[in-house]
Structures are given as C-alpha cells and as structure tokens.
C-alpha cells in the first residue's frame, strides 16, 4: 500500500508533522517515509516532497483528531511526534488514517498493524518521560535559579515542563536537553521552550555542595548490605542515566564504587539531531 517512491520531509516540529498528515489526506498519497528533515535518509530513487509547515492546516488536523478520537488520542500523537525513531512520522500517519475511521477506541487495538508500531513508540516516549520525572536532578545556582541538564532518548522536555513548573512554581528553573538542544525555562509556574545550541551551567550556590553531599550520604546509608542486588537496581535505573544522577555520578565515572559497577559507560549519543520540539502547539 505504501508508496516506496515517495517521502514527506517536514521541519521536525509537531506542526510540521501534522501538516504532512494533512497533505497526505489531501493528495490521497501514501508516502512510505514521513520524516524530520534533520533525520531524513533518502532511499534510492525516492521522490521527496518538502512539506512546508502551515499552522492553520496543523490546527485543522489537531481539531479533527480531537473531534473524532478524543483528547487522549491526540496526546498520544503529540508524544509520538517527539520520538527520535526514524519511522515515528510514518507510524503517526498510518495510525491517524486508522483512527479517523475507528474513533476513540482505536489506540487500544494494539494488535492491528497500523496501531502496533505507533503504540510502541508512544510507550517508549512516555517511558522516557517518566525516567526524567524520576531522575532529573536540579542544582541551585548562585542567583537562585535551579538548573538541570538531561540527555533523553526522545525530545521529552515539552512533556516535562508542565509537570515541573506546576510542582516547582515557587522557584525559577531551567531544564536543558543537551541531545535535542532545547531548554525549558520556568518562572512563577509559567514556562517556555527555547531553542538553544549550547548551555553553560552557571556557578553553583554556596550551600549546594552541602545538600548534594547530604543526599549522597543518605543514599549510601539507606541500602541494606544483605540485600545487595545491583541487577535489580540497573533494571529500574539504567546506567545510561547515571551520569546525571547526583548520587551515582561518581560511581559511573569510575570513582569509588563497587567493583562490579565499573564498566565502560554506554556510548553517548552525540548531539547531532536537531530538536523536534519548540513549536506553537507544544507551548503552554
């Protein structure tokens, strides 16, 4: 069914993806690839259609999905659009085609070929989102702003900002995603996304090291030796995340830790991918 000769390339934002969905419906085309331009690898002899982001069309697609399938389904589409997987865009397109016929229950038909991959991508983005809800670590800078650096596998900062800015509405903070080069800035419970190629962490507040040390002390005291089970810990807290987790960062750098834990770090993703976030629909 898919037209292997055809690829849609959009700018990587949610609006771009929704515009591509609009275009596919309008032209009755079945592109095999719907991809962000920064991530796109053309197949041999493929015809490439550059999709120009159009806010009005994106909003129409958004409204249509919400009308037919409900807000929950739309939230799934938003989550999938933040994925780094190369086939995220095409899975969104085929899911939307399927869901517009089936309605709000479509996303539960996980055994259907058009939903399966989409559901998998949504789940992996949401897992990643949850990891960062759990393991984001802020430190306090000298001017009282709290700062956290993260390196997620999907561009989840837009999903995280609502949560953190409600919870920490009494403190200004910045969350920087060093893989997708997106920063979320929050002040008084309101937040914005900023594209930012680089980020220098300002000097820490005077008492910050004290609380970090206190937390490490607590972390080391609370484990029971007789139950030592590093496999279990790793399965809940993958090692790729350790370098950002205060209480484990010196273990992951080969500092004092238990022998078994000294293994080379997993290969780091480098920041070549351009963010797919920071669009109008994702803003507050």
């Amino acid at each position, binding site marked *: 069914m898919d037209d292997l000769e055809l690829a849609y390339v959009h700018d990587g934002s949610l609006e771009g993806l929704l515009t591509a969905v609009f275009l596919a419906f309008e032209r009755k085309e079945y592109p095999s690839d719907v991809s962000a331009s920064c991530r796109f690898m053309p197949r041999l002899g493929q015809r490439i259609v550059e999709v120009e982001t159009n806010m009005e069309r994106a909003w129409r697609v958004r409204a249509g999905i919400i009308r037919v399938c409900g807000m929950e389904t739309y939230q799934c589409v938003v989550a999938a659009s933040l994925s780094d997987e190369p086939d995220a865009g095409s899975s969104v397109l085929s899911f939307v085609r399927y869901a517009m016929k089936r309605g709000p229950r479509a996303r539960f038909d996980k055994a259907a070929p058009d939903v399966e991959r989409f559901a998998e991508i949504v789940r992996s983005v949401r897992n990643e989102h949850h990891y960062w809800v759990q393991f984001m670590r802020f430190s306090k800078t000298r001017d009282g702003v709290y700062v956290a650096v993260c390196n997620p596998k999907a561009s989840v900062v837009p999903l995280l900002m609502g949560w953190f800015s409600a919870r920490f509405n009494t*403190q200004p903070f910045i969350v920087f995603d060093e893989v997708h080069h997106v920063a979320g800035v929050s002040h008084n419970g309101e937040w914005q996304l900023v594209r930012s190629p680089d980020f220098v962490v300002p000097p820490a507040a005077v008492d910050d090291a004290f609380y970090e040390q206190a937390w490490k002390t607590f972390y080391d005291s609370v484990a029971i030796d007789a139950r030592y089970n590093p496999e279990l810990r790793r399965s809940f807290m993958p090692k790729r995340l350790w370098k950002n987790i205060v209480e484990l960062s010196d273990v992951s750098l080969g500092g004092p830790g238990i022998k078994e834990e000294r293994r080379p770090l997993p290969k780091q993703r480098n920041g070549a991918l351009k963010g797919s976030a920071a669009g109008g629909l994702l803003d507050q």
Partner: protein
Amino acid sequence: MDTTAKLALLADAAKYDVACTSSGIDRDARMGALGNATAAGICHSFSADGRCITLLKVLFTNVCVFDCAYCASRCSNDVPRTSFRPRELADLTMEFYRRNYIEGLFLSSGVLKSPDYTTERIIECLRILREEYGFRGYIHAKAVPGTSSDLLAALGLLADRISVNMELPSSESLALLCPNKTRDSIVAPMRQIREGIAEDRDTRALMRRDACYMAQRRPARKTRAFAPAGQSTQMIIGATPETDFQILNLSSSLYKTMHMKRVFFSAYLSVNEDGRLPQGNAVQLDREHRLYQADWLMRFYKFDAAELIDEGQPFLATDIDPKANWAINHLDRFPIEVNTAPYEELLRVPGIGVRGAKAIVGARRATALGEAELRKLGVAYKRARFFITCRGRYQGHGTRFDKESLHAQLAAPIQAGSHGRRSGKVLAGQMSLFDGIG
C-alpha cells in the same frame, strides 16, 4: 553532631522499614506553594539493593526507651544516639525536594522519653513543613504505639499516610520479643486511624451534597483531610515461627477490617545477638518474595487468601509462584478462550497480568487474537499458552495437560541477580527457625 552525620546515622537506623511509597493521593500543585503528589507515586532513586527511594526515610531520633529484640536501636544496645531538631529536618526535606531528589518525607522514630513526647516532636516538624513552608509534597508518618488519641488526630491532619507497625504476626511473639508493646497498643491506633479516615470521608460527602435551597456555606479554604492516603503496616517475616498461612490470613483480615492500603513484609535480618531470635546470616528473601506475590494476588487479582494457601500446606511453595500453583491445582477451569473470556478469568491465567488482561480486552474488539497478537500485547506467552485457546485452538501443544507436567513447565527459580546474598540461594531451612526459639 552536624546534619550530615546525623543523617547518616538516622537513615541507617530507618533502613529496615520497608515501606517507601508515595502513593495513594492526588494533590494538585497550588500557586505559591511548593510541591504536589500523584496517586501512583514516583520513585526518585534506587539503592544498591534495588529498593526504591521515593521519600527521605529517616528516624526523627534513634534514642529509644523500648527494648524490642530485633531492633538495632533498642535501649540495651550501645550505639551512638542522636536526634534531629524539627526545623533542621524540615529544611533538609525542602532542599532535597527542590532538587527533585524525593517525593517527600517518611518520618519514623525511636521513642524519646515517652510515645507522646516523641509524637509531639514529629508533629512540630510536620507543622513547620505544612504550615510555615506550605509544603504540598507527600508525608508518611509513623504512629508510635502508645500515643494518645489527641496527638494521633493531630498527626493525621498533617500526614498523608500513617502507619502503625504490626512488627510480629501474633501477640505471643510480640510478648516474647517486644516487652514494651502489646497487641492493643498497636491495634488501638490502627482502629483510630481507620475511623478518622471514615469520618473524614463522610463529612466531605455531606458537605458536597446540596440538600437545601439556602446558600451553601463552605469553608473558604479546604481543610486538610485526615490521612488521605490511608494507612499501612509492616510485619517481620522469619523472626518468629508463624506460618505463611497465618501471615496471609492476618494481612487479608487487615485489608478487610482496617482498610489497610498496604501490608509490607520484611525478611528478618539478624542485627542483634539475642537468644530469643534465630541467629546466623540466612535471610528469607525468597519467602518474602512469595508472600508479596500472594499479597499482589489478593490486592489486584481478586484472589482470596483461602484460595492461595490452606492449613494443610501452611507455607507457600518456593519453586513455583502462587498464581501458577493455584492454576495447576484448578485445571478444571482451563483452558479458556482469550477472545471471549471475561476480564476476571483472564486475570487468573499465569503469564497474563493486569496490564496484559486489559490490553487483551481492548485489542480483541478489533482483531481476533492469536499467538502473534498476544506476544505483541506484552503477555508472557510461554507461560500463558498452557491455559488458553486462541480462536478455539489449544496453545499448549507438546505438554500433557496434567498437574505434574505443567508444574515442571512453570516452576522457575526467583530471579535474584548474580551478586547479592540471594545469588548463592542461601535458603533458610524453615525448620531451623524453631531452634532459636525453644
């Protein structure tokens, strides 16, 4: 002593408390106040033993006038003693919370002077957090047995969850090991908490009802609920000779009569030399694991304690999990057809959990499910296949449908990693328990 040293000492003393959950309450953020809470709870770290760290779990003090045999902080032990100041601990909690280290505070305590005096100190700390700092995160407080009911009522309005530790599953064991505690001093606060929660719920229900034409008079600001996340308790497993049968029946009755949210089990670890206790290094972690599995079956799978265990075989099997054990003893109920069986029956199939059963019910509206589809849905197909048919075809070919063959297929050792105490499978012989006690 400085705060970090105190923290090391008091966290170390609190680590044997297994409960570390921030679940049971949804509380939205409010402008100008720090924190919120979510009903599922969030784990913020995992310690080297793989247990979740969600709350700052510390004792308020490890000074204790009680002398419980199994406890490292008992008054007859010679250990360094210290105590937080209420504001010191409140500040520490706030700073950790701001850095996203924790969901809140879990405050337990040794008994300083008297239960009432200790509870007053705890209340002072929680009051600073809630009222002065406006903290909206999670607070779990321990009720010290013997606390007066007024103080308990005040504690319940500050904490989200309160727990009273059962510690030992029978009053005889309690008398033997905890000379300062009695069954009544434990059950009375549990009952009071249950009634406090029920009363609070009734009051709120009445306030919501629009029963008359008059303008509703509602308090301008919502009052804080009494222990909105319910109560929990904990039992030590393996210090005394109670059987799994007794333990599961006790916890099932606690769920029913005390409306417990959770009953925690803690495998006994020898920290004191004491003739009344089993000595040695054996930790009954596998037994604890099976008890938790049985507990899950009671809470989420609609099993009854009587279905899982009977007096004739008072210990859960270690080589097979309780759900599979139930299934192979009730083969007349299987196989079931995944495309038509109701949700409750799907839940009873080994290898299909709550998530799997829900996914099946959601997916089979659109697609007839076969092996490939079930695997996609996240069902443990290699276990489930012996108990199901797909589109009318039995899936467990190659194995005889009888108890022995299926037992051989489903028996599996508990995955316990390859490093800790459990990697070598140090299993305490259950009979040796009695030796230490006689």
